[in-house]
């Protein structure tokens, strides 16, 4: 299973940032991803979309990083939304009731449209 987390956060303007993650979001990568979310918010992208299409595994540490990003984004007047979550991320969101906290979208485009509503 793809291991090392690779991510890129792109500012789309108007406060919108898209974070594309690939690999496992777990104890090995969570701290770095958490910092990246915080930096993106601090640098003017409080409306984050996290693209999980390339993420095949999230553990509790990864969930904590997402929640930390959500809190930072909301404190800055924005939000953190999830796009393209696969089987395991979707299952773990449901198990922990975080599917009632995060807005989950099938795609980045639909998540971005949600910000415009």
């Amino acid at each position, binding site marked *: *299973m793809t*291991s090392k987390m690779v991510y890129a956060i792109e500012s789309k303007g108007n406060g919108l940032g898209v974070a594309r993650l690939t690999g*496992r979001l*777990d*104890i*090995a990568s*969570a*701290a770095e991803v*958490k910092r990246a979310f915080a930096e993106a918010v601090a640098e003017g992208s409080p409306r984050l979309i996290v693209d999980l299409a390339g993420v095949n*595994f999230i*553990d*509790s*540490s990864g*969930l*904590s*990083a997402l*929640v*930390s990003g959500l*809190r930072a984004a909301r404190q800055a007047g924005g939000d953190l939304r999830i796009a393209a979550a696969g*089987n*395991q991320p*979707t*299952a*773990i969101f449901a*198990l*922990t*009731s*975080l599917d*009632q*906290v995060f807005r989950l979208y099938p795609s980045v485009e639909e998540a971005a449209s949600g910000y415009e509503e």
Partner: protein
Amino acid sequence: MAMRSEEPIAHVEGDADVSLEGLDAVHTLLSRYWDVVEEALPRPVDATWRALFDSAVGEISGNIVRHAYLDNPGSATFHISFDCYTDGMEATMRDQGSPYVLMRAIGRPDMRDGLDYIEFDHGWGLPIAQAASDGLEYNRLPDGHNQWVITKRWPS
């Protein structure tokens, strides 16, 4: 301790370093195990069922890496075995680290309860592993090993 008289339909085992990099080995073993399972079983395993089993394995592995060798991190390996039976699966993990103080989780983990104060290491791993499985057993063995057994039964 989980003891079975029946032979597993599928079995994969191996060792992983007690380190963040060692988690790669866990997931590689898990992937190999699923390849063997898919060949052995007549029907595919439900994707959500599989995701929850994998989640439990990931949480316990992470727990071992994070807690078992605090005094001497990165110094050892832990052993993992996966077994598929007619009524479900088991994952067994053994390490020689410090004894673990198990605080039994009650009920299903609701991370909304911790939303306002959630931190990187808030301890959601064991509740998630327990909720994702049908049994999570920890024992400190007489030989000084910690043993974790995750059990998940096929849906009825």
